[in-house]
Structures are given as C-alpha cells and as structure tokens.
C-alpha cells in the first residue's frame, strides 16, 4: 500500500511539473512570436512615416482633396531639392486574413515606382484640410489646402497579435510652401 501511494504521488508530481513546463514554454513562445511580429511591424511602419514626413513637408500643390479611386496625388519638393516632383500614393490590396484586408501604399515619383509602405496597412486616410483644419471635399477648393492629415493603421501580416493588435500613426502636416508664414 505504501509503495503504491509513493508511486502515485511521484506520478502526480511528475505530471504537475511536466504540465507547468509545457504551459510556461507555450507562453514564452507566444510572447516571442508577438514581440517579433510587433517590432518587425514597427520598424517597417517607422520607415514609412519617414517617407510621409519627407514628402508631405514639401507639398506645393495637391491634385486630389483625398484618396480618389485609391490614389492621392500632389506635387512636392523633396528634401533640399529645388525642383518639385509629382508624387502619387496608390493603395493596392495585397491579401485578406480573418476578414481584414491588407493593403500596401505604393509611392510613385514622376510616374516611376519609388518605394512605399509595408504590405500590412489595414486603414489608410489622407485628406487635404483648409486653414481651419476642416476637410476639403471639393476639387474646386483645392487652392484652400493648408494642411494635410495622414493616418494609417497596420497589423502584423503573419499572425494576429493580442497585446498590441495594430500599429497606429496619425499626424497633420502644415507644408511651409502652403503655410501662413509665407503669406503673413
């Protein structure tokens, strides 16, 4: 009886330890996967925000008040360049997962493909605003454009993450070439 009891106890103990180790290992794997997915997304997202900043800070003229047929067009001076270039952002559907559509934002400079976003964009909004920060909804009022709002959300394209489900970034740009400082 004593031997049976000891063996039973040892078996229960062994199972408890094994179970604990399996759970801990599974949890570690989950955290590691989420962390890798998030930081990959963040690196790509940060690179895209740098492109947006460089382009939108130099806007001279906008050709569409918002994204029309998946396209937003404007003319801008990039960096220290003296000449302006026509830039186009095209939203392109890449894939779907669990009912979520993933897009990439393709960037064209003077008609040629020049980079863009990662293929993980789930929400994308770009909108011309007037001096009061109100959206412009009429092509004939594009001359009033003083600010540009850009907002995007991106999700990990590989795995649905729970801790941080989306990377979100939003900002308003006040391009100096269209701003108050040039007219005041």
């Amino acid at each position, binding site marked *: 009886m004593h031997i049976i009891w000891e063996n039973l*106890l040892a078996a229960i103990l062994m199972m408890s330890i094994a179970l604990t180790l399996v*759970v801990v290992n599974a*949890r570690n794997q989950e955290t590691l996967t989420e962390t890798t997915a998030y930081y990959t997304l963040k690196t790509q997202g940060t690179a895209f*925000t740098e492109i947006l900043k460089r382009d939108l800070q130099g806007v001279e003229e906008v050709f569409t008040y918002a994204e029309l047929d998946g396209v937003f067009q404007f003319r801008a001076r990039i960096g220290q360049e003296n000449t302006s270039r026509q830039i186009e952002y095209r939203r392109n559907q890449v894939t779907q997962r669990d009912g979520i559509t993933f897009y990439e934002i393709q960037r064209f400079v003077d008609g040629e493909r020049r980079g863009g976003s990662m293929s993980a964009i789930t929400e994308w909004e770009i909108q011309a605003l007037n001096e009061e920060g109100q959206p412009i909804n009429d092509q004939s009022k594009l001359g009033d454009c003083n600010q540009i709002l850009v907002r995007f959300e991106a999700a990990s394209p590989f795995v649905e993450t729970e801790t941080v*489900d989306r990377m979100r970034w939003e900002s308003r740009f006040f391009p*100096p070439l269209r701003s*108050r400082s040039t007219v*005041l």
Partner: protein
Amino acid sequence: MGQTLYAIIAMMIVSLFALHQQRHAIRTQMDMIDNEINTIASGVAVERLEEVSAFAFDQKTKGGRIVESPSGLTAREDFGSGEGKDMPNDDLDDFDNTDVEMQREVGGQPLVFEVHTTVDYADPVDTDQPRVERGKYKLITVTVAPKDLDNTLYNAEGLKKNTYTLAQSVSCKSACQW
C-alpha cells in the same frame, strides 16, 4: 516524510520558475504597449512641430519684412505669450513654454497627450543646441507625454510614463539679412 519534503521543494522550484517566466512575459507585453504609445506620441509631436513651425519666424519678419541685424529680432526673455508679450500668437516664439492637450483614438477609446512646447534661439553651427543670443535659427522642442486619465494606468508596477521629445530648428531664411 523525507520524500514528501523533496516533492514540496521540487514543486516550489518549478512554481518559482513559472512565476519568473510569467513576470518576464508581462514585462515584455508592457514594453510593447509603452512602445506603441510612443509611436502614437511621435505622430502627435510631428503635428505640433509642424503646426508651430508654420508660423512666421519672428514678429519682426511678418509680412515679408526684413531684419538687418540680430538686435531687430525678439529678445529671448520676450518669448512666450501672455501679459507683456506680443499678442496674438502669430509667430514662432509666441509658443514658447506653452501647453496643449492633443487627442488620438485608439480602438475607439480616446488617448490624451499633454504637449509642452519650448522655443529658443539655436546655435548656427549646431542647430540642435539652444542659446540665448539672437540669431538666424530658432529651435522648437516638443515634449509629449500620455495623460493619465484615471491615475491607474501609470504607477510603479504598471506602465512607465515615458515622454517623447522631438526638436526641429527653423531658419529665418531671406528675412534675416546680415
């Protein structure tokens, strides 16, 4: 009796190991959330910098006027807004030492940020360095911190209340001719 003691010790060691791993996982998750808040804060900081830098370089350069010596520009001690300062807020330095709140929506919930802005003259050689003497460059520094709405989000055991700082220098361009 001895074997029972060994069993208890074994269980305790495994439990401590599991607890340690769990704490590590939670810490990692907290870091990810902190990081995401910082990413959103970077958008807020860019927006505030853009907003402020869109104004005229100085009260004296408004309307295309030209300043011919540094003494023609606003003195550092006259930066800011309020009593004794130039009104309304229509040039860069009027935003010195100002605080605003800006909001973002995260998953349908508002996330409020406290945004503090300072403006200084900048060293012409290293425009990231502030200085008191008047010159052709001004340095705008924006510090963004998430506002603790219910005083429970940020505490010693929870998220760190990180601040995000972004600075940008602005040139007087052709308005300063000396």
